[in-house]
């Protein structure tokens, strides 16, 4: 096991994060704060409680998920796309490192960054709303698993993308709508029955639901399904990446 390689990639990627601290950390915090002001304070003050929780507090888990999901994908996809784009990938391919080690380096770095952002948003939320966390360990577990699984997914997108446009395509066309329709800002029980059934096909519903349960003790779907969904998604991503490195798809001619 070439743990030095994992460490080298991790340190190199984290250095990039701290070099570009403004765009890495400050901008997601700023945009989330704006969500709090608009949805939580301005509009939220006119909305009744949702499932016994004030609307401002209710949207906190969804907002964290929204940012963590998009950030994990963006960080990991850029992390591996950039070496492809500037040609430094030759070094990764010629190094005595397995796909597991290379992936671990990039994905752990991307996940660390989005985990940090998630925590910062959580802290920011305390300034705007009265918030309680019923199951903090579960909250952290969900956060870590989401950061990891969507960083894996982002890594796949980064390998798949052949230009910057494609790099943006899936986050823009698929992920953002899935998150918005995944109950980030509402409970799916508020939807008409037919749409509730449709929502159950949206994987993000399970993530948001489980995460929100860890805060307020209420979930749209059973907790076990949330755990199965996130572990299943992680597993699928790992299998896909294993196949990519085995076949060299889009990375090795």
């Amino acid at each position, binding site marked *: 096991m*070439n743990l*030095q390689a994992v460490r080298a*990639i991790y340190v190199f990627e984290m*250095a*990039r994060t701290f070099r570009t601290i403004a765009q890495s950390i400050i901008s997601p915090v700023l945009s989330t704060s704006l969500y709090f002001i608009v949805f939580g304070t301005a509009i939220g003050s006119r909305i009744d409680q949702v499932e016994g929780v004030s609307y401002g507090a209710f949207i906190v888990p969804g907002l964290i998920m929204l940012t963590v999901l998009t950030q994990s994908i963006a960080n990991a996809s850029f992390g591996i796309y950039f070496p492809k784009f500037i040609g430094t990938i030759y*070094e*990764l*391919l010629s190094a005595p*490192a397995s796909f597991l080690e290379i992936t671990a380096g990039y994905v752990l770095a991307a996940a660390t960054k989005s985990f940090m952002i998630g925590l910062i948003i959580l802290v920011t939320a305390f300034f705007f709303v009265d918030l309680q966390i019923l199951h903090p360990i579960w909250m952290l577990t969900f956060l870590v698993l989401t950061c990891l699984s969507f960083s894996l997914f982002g890594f796949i997108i980064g390998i798949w993308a052949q230009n910057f446009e494609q790099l943006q395509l899936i986050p823009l066309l698929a992920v953002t709508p899935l998150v918005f329709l995944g109950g980030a800002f509402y409970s799916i029980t508020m939807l008409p029955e037919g749409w509730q059934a449709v929502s159950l096909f949206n994987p993000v519903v399970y993530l948001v639901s489980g995460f929100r349960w860890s805060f307020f003790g209420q979930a749209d779907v059973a907790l076990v399904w949330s755990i199965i969904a996130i572990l299943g998604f992680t597993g699928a991503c790992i299998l896909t990446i294993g196949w990519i490195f085995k076949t060299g798809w889009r990375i090795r001619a």
Partner: protein
Amino acid sequence: MPTPILSVDALNKTYDGGFVALDNVSLEIMEGEILALLGPNGAGKTTLISAICGIVQPTSGRVTVGGFDTQSQYRGARDLIGLVPQEINLEPFEKVINTVRFSRGLFGKPRDDAKIEQILRQLSLWDKKDNAIRELSGGMKRRVLIAKALSHEPRVLFLDEPTAGVDVELRRDMWEIVRALSDSGVTIILTTHYIEEAEAMADRVGVINKGQILLVEEKAALMARMGQKELRIDLNKKIDAIPEELADRDVELSDDGQRLIYRYDTRAERTGIVRLLSALQAAGLSVADVETKQSSLEEIFVGLLQDQEEGVAP
């Protein structure tokens, strides 16, 4: 008999589009030597290096480095290899020292600042260690690529067109670096399409074209074996035409009528020089000076490529 550190056996690479980049390439490289792979653009030089280093997946064939199979024992094999790519592929915003440290870590070696300092000093990069790469000149960037490749102390170093697009001064600079590396015991395989470079640096020369290795030989032996020599005879008196006595001697007369040129093969049993000189005497020509010239590697190279076109074995 030295053992080969790198051995390529019947390596083939056909790209998805059907283009055959490597056609049954076999090659052995001895520890400590400098091998120059010479070939025109698109000959398969970079594909060969890429297939050895793991960047390109070979279609068939086997490569071992230090006894390790590059497919089934890739960790052992790649540990021994350093690669300096043709393109300047570097992260522009990163500091020189960080990118070199990264390479060392990636190849599984623990951080060793003293070693990194030694490499950077060897390549005259120490003063630039805290500069971002984008602030460096083209020549300096190439040195950074070399430093990265050396960071994990490889025993075999591939230099893919190290002096492509580099000015004359920098090229000589690069040659000195390569010689110093070779003196330190590193085996070097460099690709080039500059004959001059192969002639100046290599112990052995391999010629590759259209994915096939045409030959691999000691540079000196190659030049001697393949080399045609030219005998130039300066005459005391100008002549208008080649005299009858020399008609069947295959000589040329220079435009100014003052010099006879005779080409001969050093490998031939009889070079024909003695007979030519007797014929000169018989023709009553008086000789002012005689000079011989060995054909350059470039002429040999062009000759080989022409032979391949015409289907003649070298």
